[in-house]
């Protein structure tokens, strides 16, 4: 493919950068309206309880205070993105502590805070289910009795003959890994305003997927879609987290607004946000791998259990990506995988950057290193033996074609950039250098004191992944772009995809600029409003670039063809002359420089030519057989390799991240600055997953309700991040651009875990590898949730 571009691949400053750094950008909570009322949630301190009665008598006589309950929901009170199992207001029972029973609405937030305490909820606690491994026991508590079982979804995958594969293996390794509950930790807590309109309702909010929100608000209010206008305010981070929660908050605000006929604002504190919003799934992953003495993997049997928490949310899709990618990018003849998600009373889990991939990557990449160590080869060698090549067949039976299968290219590049193999051999420990301590004998014996020269141990580790782009067999995958050119040459464009802070608008502006041969400054991106454009699906699954550039390029190409006609007519050129648009100038192959872009747009007006177009892009067909997990799951894939270099303090368990080298093939890089930003952010978030972050709970009650306890990495926690792009060719997307947002995050924890193994000689099976995990081999935490400082 021709990769000579004029704008694509350059570093372009984001179109929203100036507004954001100067404070001009308007986030949801910045919007205020006359007569606007606030809403305060009513919850109870219970993990699982039957609600007997709700007594509002102490506040009923309050002037201008409204009570909103399930009775005010004119449409359906049970909603959900896949399964309708989540109440907008819980009037019968709560199944997790974040559940909202009712709202009180009024103009003074402080007063509402005070009045909320006067609402008396009488409830009977029910037995709780917080251990997902017990969810499918025959005598288990049922979270949603109408579902008859706590099983949310089961994805089986069967390829080849697993028993034959094991019998052909020289060695078999079986290990179990676990991952933790993770909070998105977007900087902006949830906020939404519902404004009554003459004939419907308008919603402005920190919303990731305006069209999904519109659908849920429609379900709740019984208003048809066209009477609900959803506008996305500037979004202060999402990472997949402002979907279900924001849909439900929008529905609550809409219900209250329809009842009071006033604008209603809901804004969450950080504590409420962490309490109620969904999280990334904790997984329990059992892998049994058979391999030959030569390092060829013959069979992989995988059994994965995901804790879906109290509601279904995106669990079926999250775990579907897991089943497709669970083996990692390795060609294996015999694969037998079961992935299940179950209900519990824990905080519910759904979409988060990575979406079912960081968990299996941690397990599978740890396992690959263990196999390499057992065979006496290096981690890069075992991956070269088994890694995909062009034409390889995946666990789902899909032949990898129509793109550069670059897994070994990114691996080799990362290995070369870091001098990986030599360092790995140098740091390697034959046995664990970590102490073992006895709780009952806390005074250290003399031999337990660490020689100061050996306190710090260096390690290096790598991880690789392949990732299906966009939605795959999850569902319909298409995007739209409306584009028009004014007579002064100003281009206006609009897509059904949303800017979630990732820089999508700038990426799409660059794509249009490249196609039209103009500079990005001449393009204006219009606000995302569900009433102005057709639904282009959600902005998820790292699909913004691959799908968005497709429709933008299509719209720009339609317009460009018309512009060429206009030029030829206006300048009386031969039909076979070739017209080039470059940096706002227009050239003829035969006559050279003709004019500029703006003049052509004026000509269009004189020639009465239409300079508006609708671009469309549809993903190629994919196929899936849900009974055996076989099919072409995604139409194309991206590849990445990250190398972590760490220093471990074996006395304290601190892991210092000296350098993370991130080599990714995202297809064509559109905005270099944006792509680098994705790597810096994704690696940092992935590092938090590896060594710091965890939401824990005591019988469902969350401990870490704010950032004093939920620790995400700071700028000081990673010394250096070194990004490198391998731009593989692909026939899909606009200009061969694919995905980068999620691949950058999914590898880091696994690479760090392997580096810690290299540094200490000990394998860690449970994320995060925090201080206690490293020193004691387990997590310890207080049972009392109260804090001394309060």
């Amino acid at each position, binding site marked *: 493919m021709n990769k000579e571009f004029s704008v694509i691949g350059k570093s372009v400053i984001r179109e929203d950068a100036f507004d954001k750094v100067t404070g001009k950008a308007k986030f949801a909570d910045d919007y205020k309206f006359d007569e606007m009322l606030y809403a305060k949630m009513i919850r109870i301190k219970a993990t699982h309880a039957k609600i007997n009665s709700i007594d509002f008598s102490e506040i009923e006589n309050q002037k201008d205070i409204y009570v909103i309950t399930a009775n005010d929901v004119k449409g359906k009170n049970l909603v959900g993105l896949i399964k309708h199992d989540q109440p907008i207001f819980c009037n019968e029972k709560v199944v997790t502590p974040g559940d909202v029973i009712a709202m009180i609405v009024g103009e003074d937030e402080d007063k509402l805070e005070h009045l909320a305490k006067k609402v008396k909820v009488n409830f009977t606690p029910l037995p709780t289910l917080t251990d997902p491994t017990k969810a499918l026991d025959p005598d288990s508590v049922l979270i949603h009795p109408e579902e008859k079982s706590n099983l949310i979804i089961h994805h089986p995958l069967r390829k080849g003959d697993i028993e034959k594969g094991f019998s052909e293996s020289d060695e078999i390794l079986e290990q179990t890994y676990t991952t933790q509950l993770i909070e998105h930790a977007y900087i902006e807590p949830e906020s939404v305003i519902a404004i009554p309109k003459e004939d419907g309702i308008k919603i402005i909010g920190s919303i990731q997927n305006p069209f999904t929100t519109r659908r849920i608000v429609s379900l709740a209010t019984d208003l048809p879609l066209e009477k609900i206008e959803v506008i996305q305010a500037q979004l202060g981070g999402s990472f997949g987290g402002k979907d279900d929660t924001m849909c439900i908050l929008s529905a609550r605000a809409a219900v209250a607004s329809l009842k009071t006929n006033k604008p209603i604002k809901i804004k969450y504190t950080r504590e409420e946000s962490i309490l109620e919003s969904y999280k990334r799934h904790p997984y329990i992953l059992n892998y049994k791998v058979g391999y030959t003495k030569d390092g060829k993997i013959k069979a992989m049997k995988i059994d994965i259990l995901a804790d879906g928490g109290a509601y279904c949310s995106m669990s079926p899709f999250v775990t579907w990506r897991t089943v497709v990618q669970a083996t990692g990018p390795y060609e294996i003849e015999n694969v037998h995988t079961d992935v299940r998600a179950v209900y519990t009373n824990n905080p519910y889990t759904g979409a988060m950057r990575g979406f079912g991939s960081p968990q299996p990557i941690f397990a599978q990449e740890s396992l690959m290193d263990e196999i390499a160590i057992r065979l006496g080869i290096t981690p890069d060698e075992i991956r070269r033996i088994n890694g995909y090549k062009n034409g390889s067949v995946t666990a789902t039976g899909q032949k990898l074609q129509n793109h550069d299968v670059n897994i070994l290219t990114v691996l080799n590049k990362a290995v070369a950039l870091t001098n990986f193999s030599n360092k790995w051999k140098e740091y390697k420990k034959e046995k664990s250098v970590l102490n073992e301590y006895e709780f009952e004998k806390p*005074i250290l014996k003399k031999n337990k004191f660490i020689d100061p020269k050996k306190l710090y141990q260096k390690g290096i580790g790598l991880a690789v992944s392949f990732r299906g782009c966009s939605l795959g067999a999850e569902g319909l995958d298409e995007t739209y772009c409306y584009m028009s050119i004014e007579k002064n040459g100003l281009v206006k464009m609009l897509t059904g995809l949303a800017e979630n802070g990732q820089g999508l608008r700038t990426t799409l502006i660059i794509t249009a600029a490249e196609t039209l041969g103009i500079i990005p400054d001449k393009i204006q991106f219009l606000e995302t409003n569900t009433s102005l454009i057709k639904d282009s699906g959600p902005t998820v699954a790292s699909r913004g670039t691959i799908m968005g550039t497709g429709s933008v390029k299509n719209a720009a190409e339609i317009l460009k063809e018309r512009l060429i006609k206009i030029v030829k007519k206006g300048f009386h050129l031969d039909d076979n002359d070739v017209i080039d648009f470059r940096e706002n100038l227009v050239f003829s192959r035969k006559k050279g420089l003709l004019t500029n872009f703006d003049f052509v747009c004026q000509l269009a007006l004189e020639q009465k030519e239409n300079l508006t177009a609708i671009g469309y892009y549809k993903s190629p067909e994919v196929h899936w057989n849900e009974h055996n997990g076989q099919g072409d799951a995604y139409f194309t894939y991206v590849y990445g390799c990250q190398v972590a270099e760490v220093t471990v303090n074996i006395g*304290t368990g601190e892991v210092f991240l000296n350098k993370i080298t991130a080599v990714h093939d995202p297809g064509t890089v559109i905005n270099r600055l944006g792509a680098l930003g994705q790597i810096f952010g994704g690696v940092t978030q992935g590092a938090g997953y590896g060594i710091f972050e965890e939401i824990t709970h005591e019988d469902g009650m969350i401990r870490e309700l704010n950032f004093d306890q939920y620790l995400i990495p700071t700028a000081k926690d990673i010394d250096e991040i070194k990004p490198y792009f391998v731009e593989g060719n692909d026939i899909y997307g606009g200009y061969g651009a694919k995905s980068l947002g999620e691949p950058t995050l999914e590898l880091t924890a696994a690479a760090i875990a392997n580096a810690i193994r290299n540094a200490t000689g000990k394998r860690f099976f449970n994320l995060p590898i925090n201080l206690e995990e490293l020193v004691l081999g387990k997590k310890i935490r207080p049972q009392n949730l109260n804090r001394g400082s309060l």
Partner: protein
Amino acid sequence: MINLNCKIETPKNIDELLKLLAVENFNSKILAGGTDLIVGKIQGSKRFVDTELLIDINKIEELHKIDLIDDKIIIGASTTFSEIENNKIINEHLPLLKKAVSKIGSLQIRNRATIAGNFVNNAPCADSVPPLLVYNAELELISFGNKRTISLENFLEAPYKTQLQKSELVSKIIIPVPDKNIIGDFYKLGRRRAVAISRITLAVLCRIENNSFDDIRIASGAVTPIGKRFYEIENFTREKRINNDLLINLSQMLGEEILKITGLRWSSAYKLPVVQQMFYQLLNNIVIKK
């Protein structure tokens, strides 16, 4: 906007301040940096829930300076951590204090938070406390018509409790200039490299003569209910010859002392072995540097 539901007064001098503090029927608190108080108030901490009046001392210049007078270093109560970190007198004479305050919170926190606020709040993990304890810091407390001096050690009572009376203000911290040949170090363990609440802090000052400890002072934070000196270990150590066995022995003694105070708590499984380990490492570093 944050509504604190409190009156705020901003006295211009100490006299005005003491008069405000002397008013009996007001439940008042001194507001300096506010990095504990305001956060606690918003979180509904029972320590601040009855506070009706905040007395903002940021306009009072005398409380906000660092001086070297004769053989004493005087730090005004509302001096911020950033100011301490960047002060020449502190850098020259109190390196452990500089190191400790430079690791507190973030730059934004250090620009606001004050030294007196740190120990008046008296969280177990207050980072400036162990260095101040080994530097034998004394505090001047003033109230309308009264003044008293008290050692920091006696001032600290229990977690989040001190000897400070309702009408009193900590006006200054007085630290005797340490001998030139005193060496030492401060150690902090947090869960990350910035904006981290301490899991363990240790401060050691000592004088080494003829390969033995002529004088040693040891304090810890975050591993005991409040910041604490370990006199028994200090007394045991004096004039002992320095060798690896002694350093191990001292570390074990520290573990025993802490265990005596805290008993086996949920966090002991981690903190007890690690505090011994890191105290041993800290002593090694000090001895090697010498």
